[in-house]
């Protein structure tokens, strides 16, 4: 016998399951304003600590404090609030539309609106985004037409993607929004290639990519960090840690022993960990990383620490695997709420204005929704022409697809 204990297999388990009372009091959350803000030219090895703290700007009194305060003017803040609220209202309507059988599938980003909206606003309008299915806020913040988004979700005759893609898998080169793939992680590394191309062409546009906490387990995540580090690519590599990947908690993705931001350290990339429900913190950290990329200082990994307040998708029931009241207990609150309170604290916003804006956005989405439905809903409409099914497989339709199209009789 060897003089060592018998080996045992470790399987991570979340602390709370349905029926338990969630308690987040042992989460280590930095105080707002407490984390230092290094110069963008800092050497990555000098800021390893930033991968383990949490950059926060909004304090308990809804004041913006500390070195990461981006000092945004009221107008910008109001635009951010509006885009986040619009995202939420839009999500609500499309979620209900799925429930009413108007489409096959939908995914909300409830509780994570600050991630996409603040990041879109901190980036330049022509920077290229490689999002996941939970960054619809990027399109909304860039004023992409809601009508087109809805028609995509309905796969109807006006669908810009011609009925080919699952709902929410938007694409728009014009709006700097790369076509979303259903396969997790694949675009994270592609963003690095886009950024390398921009550098090769001596351009001034940078790239940003998003990935979920769960999907960091895919090889593509590691390809992205390796290539970005090696070629010092001008790219933001964002990990949206919303604590859950369908039913598996962040510990199954490797979040039990270390943070997702700390993945950057081994690659020699700066890794920042940011309160993802704090609009100002997300904005500031994004700006820092974008400035670095623009100054040829290379990639940054940002962990946006947030919480998926809804089910994974319309196909999911989260009460099967986590306490029903876990979302409500999330200690970092709600991003819309927190920005609203900040604006109120600055004397720039009132309950009446908030209500008026809510009503306005609800009406706006409702009206656009009605218009979208005029073009049809899934399975109950004029679809795009069936002929188009055979197009874009290749640039030109080859003989065998022409033949198959004839066989189908279209």
């Amino acid at each position, binding site marked *: 016998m060897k003089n060592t204990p018998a080996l045992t297999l470790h399987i991570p388990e979340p602390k709370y399951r349905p029926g338990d009372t969630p308690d987040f009091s042992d989460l280590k959350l930095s105080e707002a304003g407490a984390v230092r803000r290094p110069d963008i030219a800092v050497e990555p090895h000098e800021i390893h600590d930033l991968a383990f703290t949490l950059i926060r700007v909004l304090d308990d009194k809804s004041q913006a404090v500390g070195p990461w305060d981006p000092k945004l003017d009221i107008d910008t803040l109001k635009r951010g609030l509006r885009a986040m609220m619009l995202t939420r209202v839009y999500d609500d309507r499309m979620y209900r539309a799925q429930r009413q059988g108007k489409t096959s599938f939908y995914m909300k980003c409830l509780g994570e609106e600050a991630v996409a909206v603040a990041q879109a606003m901190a980036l330049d309008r022509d920077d290229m985004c490689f999002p996941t299915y939970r960054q619809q806020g990027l399109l909304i913040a860039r004023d992409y037409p809601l009508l087109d988004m809805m028609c995509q979700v309905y*796969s109807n005759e006006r669908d810009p993607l011609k009925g*080919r893609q*699952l709902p929410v898998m938007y694409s728009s080169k014009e709006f700097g929004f790369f076509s979303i793939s259903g*396969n997790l992680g694949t675009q994270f590394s592609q963003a690095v290639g886009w950024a390398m191309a921009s550098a090769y062409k001596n351009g001034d546009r940078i790239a940003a990519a998003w990935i979920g906490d769960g999907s960091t387990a*895919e090889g593509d995540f590691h390809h992205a960090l390796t290539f970005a580090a090696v070629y010092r690519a001008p790219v933001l590599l964002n990990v949206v840690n919303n604590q859950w990947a*369908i039913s*598996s908690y962040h510990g199954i993705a490797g979040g039990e022993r270390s943070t997702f931001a700390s993945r950057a350290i081994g690659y020699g990339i700066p890794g920042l960990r940011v309160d993802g429900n704090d609009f100002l913190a997300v904005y500031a950290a994004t700006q820092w990383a974008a400035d670095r990329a623009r100054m040829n200082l290379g990639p940054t990994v940002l962990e946006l620490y947030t919480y998926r307040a809804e089910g994974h998708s319309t196909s999911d029931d989260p009460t099967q695997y986590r306490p029903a009241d876990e979302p409500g207990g999330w200690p970092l609150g709600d991003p819309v709420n927190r920005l609203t309170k900040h604006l109120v604290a600055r004397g720039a916003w009132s309950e009446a204005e908030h209500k008026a804006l809510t009503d306005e956005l609800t009406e706006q989405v409702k009206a656009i929704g009605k218009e979208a439905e005029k073009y049809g809903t899934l399975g109950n409409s004029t679809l795009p022409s069936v002929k188009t099914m055979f197009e874009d497989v290749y640039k030109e339709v080859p003989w065998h697809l022409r033949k*198959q199209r004839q066989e189908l009789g279209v």
Partner: protein
Amino acid sequence: MAQMNMIQALNSAMDVMLDRDPDVLVFGEDVGYFGGVFRATEGLQKKHGLKRCFDTPIGEGGIIAVAIGMGAYGLRPCVEIQFADYIYPAFDQLVSEAARLRYRSAGDFWAPLTVRTPYGGGIFGGQTHSQSPEALFTHVAGLTTVIPSNPYDAKGLLIAAIENDDPVIFLEPKRIYNGPFDGHHDRPVSPWSKHPESEVPEGYYTVELGKAAQVREGKDVTVLAYGTMVHVAKAAVDDSKIDADILDLRTLLPLDIGAIVKSVQKTGRCVIVHEATRTSGFGAELAALVQEHCFYHLEAPIERVTGWDTPYPHAFEWDYFPGPKRIGDALRKVMEV
């Protein structure tokens, strides 16, 4: 005997094997506490413990790689890839590693893993929840590819797969998990409970790998199908006046060539049906084999009814799906010759 739908039958197969063999492990994305997005592993963690049935990181390459390593140690992992559309990150581990381990080590190492994965369309899953990649696996020397079409076979084949000492790709037609879909999407679906194949023994039994099943006896034409398409083909035959011999292949590789030859020599005609894209699909292999073995018995060119050579388009589910009408057309066409 118990009445089971396909999910329950698969669940029962894993349950039986977890009970019988302490070296069997079940793991994959969301399969542990939650029991899988299609519920195939529901209750297994609770019954057999955290270490026998657990969640994995979202890394299909990792899932297959650790299953190979475990297999090399002597375990018998049965893993789930959440959708066949997501198996590609594991392709290298399957093709270059699992499939060849026995060969390259001259029998020194092998990897007895079973890879369960839902495949196929008919659920409005769009491009990335609808694919039928079976031909990618039948093209690889060293892999066994199995596709059941009903609860009884699903359980017996899965147990046989888990007990098999070589890697098995076990593709599950997700459209028929809850009931046999006949391709008439506008008609109500009947649940498995109305079908005799839903009578499933509760305990251990196997359905031998490599054996096709005769679904319908006929003399006019042989229809070769597997998975969901067995039921669609049957509906198409029922709708026609053609007396078809329908074979459910069940194992694509190694293939039951004897059953195919016997049938085609009897009928002299052959229609091959699969949902996967046509070019280089498994139907091409079947057509080649049929003409190799039955050329002098054939009275008409072999017909293939398949998905089109495009990605699976969300809005055009039923234009893409090779439904009963297209199969009926092919049956009539071979009969006209």
